[in-house]
């Protein structure tokens, strides 16, 4: 390098204000998310009960976790719920958005109707649907009251299909937001694309599938983050609707974590379960997140 006068400002002080402004983010990322996670993983190797204690027992908690039938049920439920809710949220959300994007009348009204459940908490959603799906009072009871005695619709009391009962409520609550995201994405597409497709005589569905959807990649990514984080965390809805029942048929991992940490007063077991959840999240998310949000766009 050539001669220098007054010394180059140190790397630390470059963009100093930006760094100061980012302190909350950095602290949250490091102390809460990273630190809290490390703390959790660390204590998952102990036999902490009610209070965290440093009494290491190796992988015992994990062995017990993977031998627990309830954990297996929870994992299986999460898988079913996750896959279906991802597919249905995206498909239904997109279809609704596409319908609203047809230059229809009363678009605002329809949009508000589809979106309002999102304003309600999962607890509230769970309560409403618990009631609607109650076999005595709810839909089944009403249909039977109309004279169709053999009608059966009791997803919340049937271990085989209970997870679908939860899915119905989850979709009711969540698809409105997805629709909004998709609608915003559709509105962001250049009108000329539609004109071109029309002139080329491409059928509408083909235009959507092969042209529009690929163009909406960023929307799909934001949507995926929102849906997927909701799936991993699903807890309140299950508690409000079924408390994991009947039996353990609608248990989910987050509830296992909560129950073992606080109800069973076995922090070690709860931490082991949350570590497994984190691990799966990390395996799936981190490489993707880093590609998506990490190295990108320089000038």
């Amino acid at each position, binding site marked *: 390098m050539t001669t220098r006068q007054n010394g180059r400002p140190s790397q630390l002080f470059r963009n100093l*204000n930006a760094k100061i402004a980012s302190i909350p983010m950095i602290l*949250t990322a490091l102390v809460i998310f990273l630190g809290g996670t490390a703390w959790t993983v660390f204590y998952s190797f102990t036999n902490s009960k009610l209070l965290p204690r440093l009494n290491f027992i190796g992988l015992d908690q994990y062995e017990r976790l993977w031998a627990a039938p309830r954990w297996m049920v929870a994992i299986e439920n999460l898988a079913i719920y996750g896959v279906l809710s991802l597919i249905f949220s995206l498909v239904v959300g997109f279809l609704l958005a596409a319908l609203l994007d047809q230059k229809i009348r009363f678009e605002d009204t329809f949009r*508000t109707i589809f979106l309002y459940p999102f304003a309600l908490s999962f607890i*509230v959603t769970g309560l409403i649907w618990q009631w*609607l799906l109650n076999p005595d009072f709810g839909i089944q009871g009403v249909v039977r009251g109309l004279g169709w005695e053999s009608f059966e619709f009791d997803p919340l009391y049937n271990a085989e299909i209970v997870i679908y009962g939860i899915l119905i409520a989850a979709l009711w609550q969540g698809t409105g937001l997805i629709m909004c995201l998709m609608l915003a994405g559709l509105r962001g597409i250049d009108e000329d694309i539609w004109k071109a497709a029309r002139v080329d005589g491409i059928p509408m569905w083909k235009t959507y599938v092969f042209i529009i959807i690929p163009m909406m990649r960023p929307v799909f990514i*934001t949507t995926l983050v929102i849906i997927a984080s909701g799936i991993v965390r699903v807890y309140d809805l299950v508690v409000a609707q079924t408390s994991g029942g009947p039996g353990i048929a609608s248990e989910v991992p987050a509830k296992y*974590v909560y129950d073992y940490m606080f109800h069973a007063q076995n922090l070690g077991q709860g931490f082991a379960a949350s570590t497994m959840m984190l691990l799966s999240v*990390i395996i799936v998310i981190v490489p993707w997140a880093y590609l998506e949000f990490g190295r990108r766009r320089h000038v």
Partner: protein
Amino acid sequence: MSDPAALNVAASGFEAVAKDVSDPRGAKPRRVLSRRNIFLYGTLILIAVYYLLPLYVMFVTSLKGMPEIRLGNIFSPPVEITFEPWVKAWATACTGLNCDGLSRGFWNSVRITIPSVVLSIAVASVNGYALANWRFKGADIFFTILIVGAFIPYQVMIYPIVIILREIGLYGSLWGLVIVHSIFGMPILTLLFRNYFTSVPEELFKAARVDGAGFWAIYFKIMLPMALPIFVVAIILQVTGIWNDFLFGVIYTKPESYPMTVQLNNIVNSVQGVKEYNVNMAATILTGLVPLIVYFASGRLFVRGIAAGAVKG
């Protein structure tokens, strides 16, 4: 559109119809009841019913007396309208020894929600702005951690946060709860703001720098006034999330500042013999009212904001 003559419901006027079909001329005939429209609106109305049904049932039930609920059909309108359940839910429903219904928690919820929404959005918008326009070394790594943090179940973080809040002496205080809400709102909000500010033309930012504006001047004078739509989205998401929160409200505060949802949980879960569905439903609607109003009031801005925060990026 195979046979225009057959189904023509005359939106285009008599002349157009009278002309020879094989020789089109003038305005193209349009039909209000085209197959496409029937399908389109039919589907929309059907789905709207599915979405509205629970609200309808909630509302109708909250206006019925218990005997009517026990006998009747949940979809039928109330025979005798009573506002008793609403009064009870708001003012007299009991939890333990306290019989003042939801009213007790309402102002607490307001007191929690306002500072939490303000702080979380302030922090996240500055973060997003710094990430979009003042990239510094390592920022991406922190941001990635933040996004991954969005996937961590809340329950996992309860104990570490209890410990941290205890250490900084904020445990049990309103500000402790406000910080917790800001932390958990940060990933998604930061993502939204970052995407939004990234979509603002970079030259604007450069022009401001040449004009001598620094980090904060650009934020307050250039970026902030342009960011209304995304602020609407952030406010909606946060008001909804924080108002509806139960877990943090109950764990990180004291009973005298419990939010409304705690009362809701108490009312709904303290069963005094029979479940009072009408009171539960009234309480449920009352609790959800604030976010609902925010939704209806924001209307179109929400989609616009979402468009700005989610589409680009």
